[in-house]
């Protein structure tokens, strides 16, 4: 019978095993990257209860602004204080609605030294940003979000957004959009100071 076997019974030439493994590894890795990207995009901003230890930052301050006589500020150096982290931009119309209120609240808490306000200027241009700060007479530390690293860490969805951090650096309240009044800002701070 063997002599009657068809000629095309030679072993099939397929894709080598190493190539198959490589292709599948690359495809799976790509899918994982895409999945992680989509998941991150769906995640939304950092929520109350999040620890900020994992996304510490050091922000350079605009010319003329200082925090404890230094022209930059790191988040970890603010442990033990209540932090009000406000994301804003000079091109943002609604940011202007809360500029006065934020400054008013800052001036109220500044003498006590237990609360720190930080303004993070998001994808802005420096001349306009400085003009904005001057227009609203903002005195609390402000600086640019270099490389948008801070806004990416907090996964902000827009401006204005404000994050209230307790003395341990845990996010306790998130304000999306502008504040309605100075009292609203103060109410959130007082809750954290009372702890």
């Amino acid at each position, binding site marked *: 019978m063997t002599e009657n076997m068809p000629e095309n019974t030679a072993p099939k030439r397929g*894709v080598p095993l190493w190539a198959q493994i490589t292709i599948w590894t690359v495809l799976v890795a790509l899918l994982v990257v895409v999945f992680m990207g989509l998941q991150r995009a769906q995640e939304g901003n950092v929520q109350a209860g999040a620890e900020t230890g994992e996304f510490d930052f050091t922000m350079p301050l605009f010319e003329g602004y200082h925090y404890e006589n230094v022209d930059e500020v790191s988040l970890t150096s603010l442990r033990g204080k209540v932090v009000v982290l406000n994301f804003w931009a000079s091109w943002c119309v609604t940011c202007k609605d809360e500029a006065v209120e934020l400054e008013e609240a800052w001036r109220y808490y500044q003498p006590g030294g237990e609360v720190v306000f930080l303004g993070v200027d998001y*994808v802005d241009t420096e001349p306009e940003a400085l003009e904005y700060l001057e227009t609203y007479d903002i005195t609390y530390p402000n600086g640019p979000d270099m490389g948008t690293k801070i806004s990416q860490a907090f996964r902000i969805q827009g401006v204005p957004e404000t994050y209230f951090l307790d003395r341990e650096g845990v996010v306790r309240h998130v304000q999306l959009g502008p504040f309605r009044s100075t009292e609203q800002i103060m109410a959130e701070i007082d809750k954290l100071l009372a702890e």
Partner: protein
Amino acid sequence: MKKTYIFLLIIIFLSLFAVSTVAAQGGVTDDRVNEIASQLFCPVCENTPLDVCETQACKQWRELIRLKISEGSTEAEIKQYFVDNYGARVLSEPPREGFSLLVYFVPPLIILIGAVILFRALRRWKTEDEDAVEMGAGPTSTSDADDDYIARLEEEMLKRD
């Protein structure tokens, strides 16, 4: 003659207007600004090149480009300034380094792998079709084998009878 004078006056007026406009913009033309702006994307308005984006943020960015050009910055320096301040994602063409390199290698690699797989599959199908035709068109070998087999079978049956 009078018409010629009027025509010349209009030309002079328009030239002066154009010169004053460029001078008011720091001696930098919109085309030059847009040339650089077209290579940038503002993170606020995703998927819209900076040169055609009409938001306030993008207008400010274009003015910043104008300012940088008037200060003598080169195109590379301006782009680097934007990367330093707003991150590499503002570039329309990702930098050819680090993780961004994947953008340049992965898509061509996938296309290449796909082409190889397709080529091999097509070749295999073609070979199988040819084999099938050959098997169908060459009845002699199998027929001979069958005849031989039937003859032996009949012989065995006769022996049993």
